């Protein structure tokens, strides 16, 4: 497996996401307990953890889909919990969110899926401008010829790519990927990993990648945060986390296969 080392520069003076003392629970279930994390400009951070460990809850809090019970989440200088209405929408336009299920609109073609967020958020665009933006986003994910297809006609990997293209059309500063390689074969997963790196380089984004796929974490991220029982047990480079002596982290790694 090709090891795609991260070559871009990270600005450690500029924190784009800052999470401090974050707690979140659903009824009696405590999902996140005192989560702390800083993501720097130009950095890709993978959040690793078992299914149901609260990884997706974390990025849904970052984008304001869920409210924290306690703690502070500052994204691009704004405290997400305190935002509502237009302020929250303005922040969300600067964040791209790639869903685990791709979440493409079934009733719309690929072109319409991409044009929809653009036309709804940017007023007075001509048809030609929309066409150019859609073509550019599709070209960025290598699916320039799929414009007229319906989501149901696409493969899993293509759906993921279109989902990423739909977020790219608004030129986000931060990308949040929720399980980008889940349900994909190793070859398609490698293509998605390469795409994540291409997006980072082309659009100069910072990313949080939620995954339990170690290959994805190793090949796309500068740092890895290991989420165990609702808290980050270890944050560091992939090698630092992989070589830790913590039993719980070793158990997690021992169950996963690295190509």
């Amino acid at each position, binding site marked *: 497996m090709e090891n795609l080392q991260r070559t871009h520069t990270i600005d450690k003076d500029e924190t784009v996401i800052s999470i401090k003392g974050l707690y979140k629970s659903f009824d009696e279930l405590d999902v996140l307990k005192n989560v702390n994390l800083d993501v720097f400009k130009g950095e890709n951070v993978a959040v690793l953890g078992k299914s149901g460990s609260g990884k997706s809850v974390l990025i849904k809090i970052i984008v304001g889909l869920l409210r924290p019970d306690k703690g502070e989440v500052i994204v691009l200088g704004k405290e997400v919990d305190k935002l509502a209405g237009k302020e929250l929408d303005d922040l969300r336009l600067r964040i791209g969110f790639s869903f685990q299920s791709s979440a493409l609109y*079934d009733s719309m073609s690929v072109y319409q899926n991409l044009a929809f967020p653009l036309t709804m958020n940017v007023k007075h665009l001509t048809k030609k401008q929309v066409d150019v933006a859609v073509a550019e986003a599709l070209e960025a994910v290598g699916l320039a010829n799929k414009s007229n297809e319906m989501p149901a006609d696409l493969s899993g990997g293509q759906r993921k790519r279109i989902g990423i293209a739909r977020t790219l059309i608004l030129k986000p500063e931060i990308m949040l990927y929720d399980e980008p390689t889940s349900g994909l074969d190793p070859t398609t997963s490698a293509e998605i990993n390469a795409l994540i790196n291409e997006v980072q380089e082309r659009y100069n984004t910072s990313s949080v990648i939620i995954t339990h796929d170690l290959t994805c974490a190793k090949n796309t991220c500068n740092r890895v945060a290991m989420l165990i029982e609702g808290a980050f047990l270890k944050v560091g480079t992939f090698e630092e986390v992989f070589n830790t002596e913590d039993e719980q982290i070793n158990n997690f790694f021992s169950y996963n296969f690295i190509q």
Partner: protein
Amino acid sequence: MFQNRINVNSRKYLFSKGVDHYFEGVYKGYQFTLRFFKEAFKPPFHFREVINQCFEIGLKSLLLITLTGFIVGIVFTKQSRPSLENFGATSWLPSLIGIAIVRALGALVTALICAGKVGSSIGAELGSMKVTEQIEAMEVSAINPFKYLVVTRVIATTITIPVLALFCSFVALLGSYTNVHAEEASSLLMFYKNAFSNISFLDVFSSVFKSIVYGFTIGIVGCYKGFNATQGTRGVGRAANEAVVLSMFLIFFEEVIIVQVSNWIRHF
């Protein structure tokens, strides 16, 4: 500061789990309806989507409404004729049919058909969008899904169902006429003239008003059930089913109230 933290083990119910759950549902439905009115009058307005939904709901229900309305007209005339013959009052048949269809059947039959066809379709569509994260995808793209999905659909049902109800009444009278014409020679113009001879403005107004209320009910219930669907594909099926059952129940409930009120006005 811990917000929204509920310890289920220590939760005490006001009455019982079932009763509390029922009133919680009523309150959430009320909040959902209130949100509709808040969002409906606030820009941006998605006119194109409203027109698109009117087409989806209206034009695609037209054939079903036409067939059902026509059959209702025939059956109702066939059932009424023997009773009127006993009194030698078959000449009153057009008036009787006219009153029955314009005052009650046209709006009610259309509403029940649309509750089944449109309500379930809205419930299933929004439910499916909810469980496949498409609604969240709109939110993270800074698009208000309530405004785009709910407001447009409810406005479309509120506009379209009264139009369909008027059309259904017209077709039902046509069905009735074919039956009357088969038994005795009469012209279409004369039939319609007789049918409308005892119809007042209040009858037409209350019928249109009823249809508006039914249209709103079908739209808001379908959207509410779909928008709050949970538990995957099973939840989608449940949302569609509950949308039909609840909207039909509410339609009958509203029918009783509106008929009662229009009778009071008539006597007043």
